[in-house]
């Protein structure tokens, strides 16, 4: 076993893992605070990548500004998604909400194919082809960027939820929505902020990953699938769970692909879901809820 290859696979895994973390954090946030399972989450990832592409192409922005514009743009879309879909349905049965989110996902994917075109696109980034070499280890700057930005954003999010007033309101809503409302928490505002954060995070992931692979309108279904695997592994609603779960999935996939077979790498995600659900249904970091 060659240690350079091992280190390279580990690095690949950590970077892929960080994109999973960014995708899963939004998913877990929406579930943790609002108890909504959002199947349309992957489409906001797709929109993040496409908005970056069009912001760069049509507005002539450089990659970083385009990524920021796209993230903010999709975060604003989060407000609309909440107002039009999730807020009106908040008192309905969980399945109704779940099915509506599936409908929203289909709407966005097919709308994307109609508006953006089915052809794959490439988000140009000055960091995509520039390489960092550490000894024999090779990582593109884009991948370093994914990891660093991911880590910083999660750190910031953690501070926000722990210490800001809004973060406290979100945690109160997560514990008991009625109780929170009675003690003066503006639930409507909590919904909005949660969706803005979740959609923004998904879009940021799309904007960051865009330059490492081609983008096409159905790429969101891949993203939401990875997101769900991570969330189940880490525990629905747990942000540290999403972090550890995402990085674990990335590394396990990469090492399994590298040392067993690539076909196996994809299967391992589903195997993880089954094992976790059997052995620890609340996830590694989740807390069991009794209803």
């Amino acid at each position, binding site marked *: 076993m*060659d240690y*350079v*290859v091992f280190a*390279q*696979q580990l690095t*690949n*895994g950590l970077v*892929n893992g960080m994109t999973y973390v960014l995708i899963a954090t939004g998913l877990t946030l929406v579930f943790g605070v609002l108890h909504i399972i959002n199947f349309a989450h992957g489409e906001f990832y797709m929109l993040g990548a496409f908005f970056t592409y069009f912001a760069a192409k049509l507005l002539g922005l450089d990659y970083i500004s385009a990524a920021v514009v796209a993230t903010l743009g999709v975060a604003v879309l989060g407000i609309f998604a909440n107002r039009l879909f999730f807020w009106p349905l908040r008192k309905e049965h969980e399945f109704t909400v779940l099915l509506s989110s599936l409908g929203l996902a289909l709407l966005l994917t*097919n709308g994307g*194919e109609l508006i953006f*075109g*089915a*052809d*794959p*696109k*490439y988000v140009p980034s000055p960091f*995509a*082809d520039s*390489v960092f*070499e550490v000894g024999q280890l*090779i990582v*593109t700057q884009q991948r370093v960027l994914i990891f660093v930005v991911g880590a910083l954003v999660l750190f910031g999010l953690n501070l926000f939820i722990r210490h800001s007033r809004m973060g406290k309101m979100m945690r109160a809503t997560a514990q008991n929505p009625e109780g929170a409302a009675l003690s003066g928490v503006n639930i409507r505002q909590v919904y909005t902020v949660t969706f803005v954060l979740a959609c923004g995070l998904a879009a940021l992931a799309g904007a960051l990953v865009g330059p*490492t*692979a*081609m983008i*096409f*309108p*159905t*790429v969101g279904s*891949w993203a939401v699938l990875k997101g769900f695997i991570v969330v189940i592994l880490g525990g629905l609603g747990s942000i540290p769970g999403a972090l550890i779960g995402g990085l674990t999935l990335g590394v396990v*996939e*990469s090492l399994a*692909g*590298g040392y067993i*077979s*690539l*076909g196996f*790498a*994809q299967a391992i995600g589903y195997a993880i879901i089954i094992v976790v659900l059997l052995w620890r249904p609340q996830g590694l970091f989740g807390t069991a809820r009794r209803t």
Partner: protein
Amino acid sequence: MMKRKYLMAAAAAVLLGTAFGAQAQDKEPVRIGTIAPLSGPGAFDGQLAVEGMEAMVEIVNENGGILDGRMIELVKYDDKGNPEEGVSAAKRAIEQDDVDAIVGGWFSSVALTMKEVTRDRIINVMTSTQHPNTTKEGHKYLFRLNATSVMMSETYAKFICDKMDIETIAFITINDDYGRLEVENYERLLDECGIEVLGNEFYNKDDTDFTTALTKLKALDSDAIYVSAINTAQGATIYRQIKQSGYKGTTIASAGNMNPKLVELSGPALEGVYSVSLFAPDSDSEKLKAWMEQYGEMFSNEPSFIGSLGAQAVELLAGAMDEAGSARDYDKIAEALRGHEWETILGTINFDEIGQAMQNIYLVQVKDGEITSVNE
């Protein structure tokens, strides 16, 4: 009041219906069902394929259609690149929509299952599928335009052995019927001429990251990496990531999978890369030029190989139906197709007993961002 309105509407509908009906009786269109991947990762390839067909339909219809003035009409179905979807699309085309002929089989896995639905029931022209079994286990109404991967790989392997000056090679291949066969073919053919195959990595059809596979391949340190990618999105990602991994050897693109969009998306990563194709855009055939011109007028994409195959399918069906004097007499149409050589946009083509086409295979290379044919 309401009732009267409904009655009037109904009367109007009946009138309209008869008016259209009368017109349709004069020139009922010949309907060709086209089953292609219009969504999913293969969506763009499907779009190119259908655009190629539409451009040729336009040419045929502008010249007065076929069978004394009947227009050709395309009926589109989405197979999503999935065998199951392909089967249900073919069933719908035959049983519900009653189309006159079917053009499909862009991906081998779809073609292999779909052909059982169309077996001996309808003329079915398979297009870009390369799996030999598409025609080997085919049926009397089935024709396939693309060269099989065996035919392609024999030509291509000869070139790789003679011209590329490499001693070792590694593969990255898609994990489906087509990919597995590719590896098998090339391992045998390249071994015969003394090129050592160091390894192969299979990837899945919805993978978006290939760094794990490429890290493994790079560690093998082969002189060349052969990339077998049938869809443009994955292909472009692989070529870019090969470059990003710092691999310095030769990159070889799989046969028949080079198109202008791939060149555009892959950027410098594809410069100098070779492939073989039935379609050489710089050929000076008049028919090809006319089609490319028509395509350029109708669509914003560049004409591509799979588009040209779609166009060829329409061209051949139109010719054979004219010769058979019917759009439904499948025995006669099949006989016409097998009967003689056809002059088409891709040059001379003829079919053997099992419906396999024999066509020219060109060697192409990307030079300054253009796909150019290599003349020896």
